[in-house]
């Protein structure tokens, strides 16, 4: 057989709840673990209301000069939260990018931390004890390797934990993505890779970013289980994430999930997407908003109505204004903070001197030198 097929692969796309609120019962039958139960779906929806509201407020904080650059998460809540619901809080570990706030908050990150981060304060990264995640990651594509390493530690120590990493479509172009996927697969570590394909990397559309038909097929290179899901469908994301996470936990190695979603806002507050993006495209995606379809689903099941919507929007306002107050109430750090966490132990002498004097010049720092200056003048 001199010309023979030695390998075959295909990519499946999963959607459970479509944009009209139609639910595919066969794919996630009522009562089965792969189906989010009503109370979970309800909680998730309420949580999304808060997340979305905080997202809008964060945008305004930047606009009014009370916060630095901020990347809106609007429209991507289901992709984040579907994964968070499928992971074990307090056990599994997240290595996020910056567009899955909902997942981090759901797993216990105090909401004001993310504001603090964007307010230019490292304390927004000072993840509290028991909250299992790395802080928001700025350099694109670099955090997946950390997730792989963390998952590797779990494997070595035989802990039934999973590391889950989030990143964008653009991030899959970085070499580190490739290395993380390859390490995870060769080492068969419990790591789940979630790509939020929101179609844009700042101004660069997916078609310029890559020439592959799907992002999901990138995992084929590593022989890694992979799937494309409708990322605006909480149920699809949950089902796929649950399967991947539990496979990883059971020793079945890493998986890749492409969650197809859309960046409804600008890239960040420093960006103006009108420069490069067709408004019709945005328009079309507004209809696919994950919250709209989830609301339809809940309403159809008699779990939601306009009154409850109004009530929870009010609640969200209260929560969010509390969060903003907390973040803004935190005083500017002292200059000692610049130095104190450089190393664990006592600072090196020179650094201690810099900290004490807030100077790098040598004159006026050492008593002996002060004494010497008399000599200098005599010279």
């Amino acid at each position: 057989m001199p010309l023979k097929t030695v390998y075959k692969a295909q990519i499946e796309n999963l959607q459970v709840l479509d944009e009209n609120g139609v639910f595919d019962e066969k794919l996630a039958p009522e009562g089965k673990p792969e189906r989010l139960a009503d109370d979970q779906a309800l909680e998730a929806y309420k949580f999304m209301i808060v997340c979305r509201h905080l997202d809008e407020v964060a945008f305004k904080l930047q606009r009014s000069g009370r916060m630095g650059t901020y990347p809106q998460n609007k429209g991507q809540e289901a992709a984040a939260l579907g994964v968070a619901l499928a992971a074990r809080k307090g056990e599994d570990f997240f290595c996020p990018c910056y567009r899955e706030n909902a997942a981090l908050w759901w797993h216990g990150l105090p909401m004001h931390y993310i504001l603090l981060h964007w307010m230019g304060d490292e304390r927004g990264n000072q993840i509290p004890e028991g909250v299992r995640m790395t802080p928001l990651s700025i350099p694109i594509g670099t955090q997946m390797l950390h997730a792989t390493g963390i998952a590797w530690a779990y494997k070595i120590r035989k802990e039934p934990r999973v590391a889950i990493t989030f990143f964008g479509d653009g991030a899959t172009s970085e070499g580190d993505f490739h290395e993380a996927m390859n390490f995870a697969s060769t080492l068969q570590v419990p790591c789940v890779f979630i790509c939020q394909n929101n179609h844009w990397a700042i101004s660069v559309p997916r078609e310029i970013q890559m020439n592959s038909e799907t992002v999901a097929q990138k995992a084929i290179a590593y022989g890694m289980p992979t799937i494309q899901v409708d990322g605006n469908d909480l149920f699809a994301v949950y089902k796929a994430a649950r399967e991947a996470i539990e496979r990883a936990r059971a020793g079945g190695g890493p998986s890749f999930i492409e969650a197809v979603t859309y960046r409804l806002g600008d890239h960040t507050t420093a960006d103006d997407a009108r420069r490069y993006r067709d408004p019709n495209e945005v328009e079309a995606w507004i209809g696919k908003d994950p919250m709209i379809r989830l609301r339809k689903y809940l309403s159809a099941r008699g779990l939601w109505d306009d009154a409850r919507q109004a009530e929870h929007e009010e609640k969200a306002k209260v929560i969010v204004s509390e969060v903003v107050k907390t973040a803004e109430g935190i005083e500017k750090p002292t200059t000692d903070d610049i130095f104190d966490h450089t190393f664990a132990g006592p600072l090196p002498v020179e650094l201690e001197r810099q900290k004490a004097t807030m100077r790098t010049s040598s004159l006026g720092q050492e008593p002996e030198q002060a004494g010497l200056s008399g000599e200098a003048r005599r010279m």
Partner: protein
Amino acid sequence: MPRSDMMIEKGLTLVDAINEALAQEMEHDQRVILLGEDVGLNGGVFRVTDGLQKRFGVDRVVDTPLAESGIMGTAIGLAMAGMRPIPEIQFEGFLGPAYDQLTNHAARYRTRSRGAITIPLTVRVPVGGGIHAPELHSDSPEAIYAHTPGLKVVMPSTPYDAKGLLIASIRDPDPVIFFEPKRVYRSFREHIPEEEYTIPIGQAKVVSEGTDLTVVTWGASVFECLAALDRMPEDVSVELIDLRTIYPFDADAVVESVRKTGRCVVVHEAPKTAGMGAEISSIIQEHCFLHLKSPVQRVAGFDTVMPYYKLELDYLPDATRIAESIQQTLAY
């Protein structure tokens, strides 16, 4: 592109000057192409390449995938094949992934091939702090590249210098890192010639002449130094040198000045330890030993990671710290 009314009236910002230099070089040299993340339709995140894709087409102003090593590595290939690529790295913090291609290939190819293969590329990189940006958007890694043989490292501080040095860099047959101090991007305007001109790489500029002390600096710190000079008593005469090129830097200009003044303060944003200030201080010591009336001082960033923006102004050398160091040096 004809200059806007604003430019004609008030002059060009640093951004305008760079944009004009790029346009003019692209106009007269078909080999010049721009590549990088968001440099096309979006005109770059700082709008430095604004309008250039529209003018020169998508084949000459190319939005690449999000991969800095890929940008640098393919730019090297383009350069090998006779093009004059100008890759943009969006922020100096993202030079990291491109480090290997830049230092182990771009910088080495001419000498490792004994001149058979050369890499005429100009990497444009916004640099430095002070604009309230997120993490990894405010660093100053110039010393790293000055310590890398085979690279030239340029950092203009004014629109005039930026245009002349960028054109010189593009025409240079070797790889140049062109650092653009982002704090200066739009901080002031300057009237500069519309026609093309070059400023030789490796020449410092005496910003103000003086006899009592020499201040050596570059990039955005030039303006902090000027502010410090403003605070000096009338009878103190300080010579301010804007290095403009970090490698090969103009040691002669520095040495000449310090032989005259006998005192020197070097100012930069990067961490003190093993920064360019150390090199300049050492060169001065080596060549002005008997002229020195006081030890050369370094006013620099601290030996810590650049803090997030709430603290960045505490980190960056400012007029107060500079002025104080000048006075201490004078009093020594």
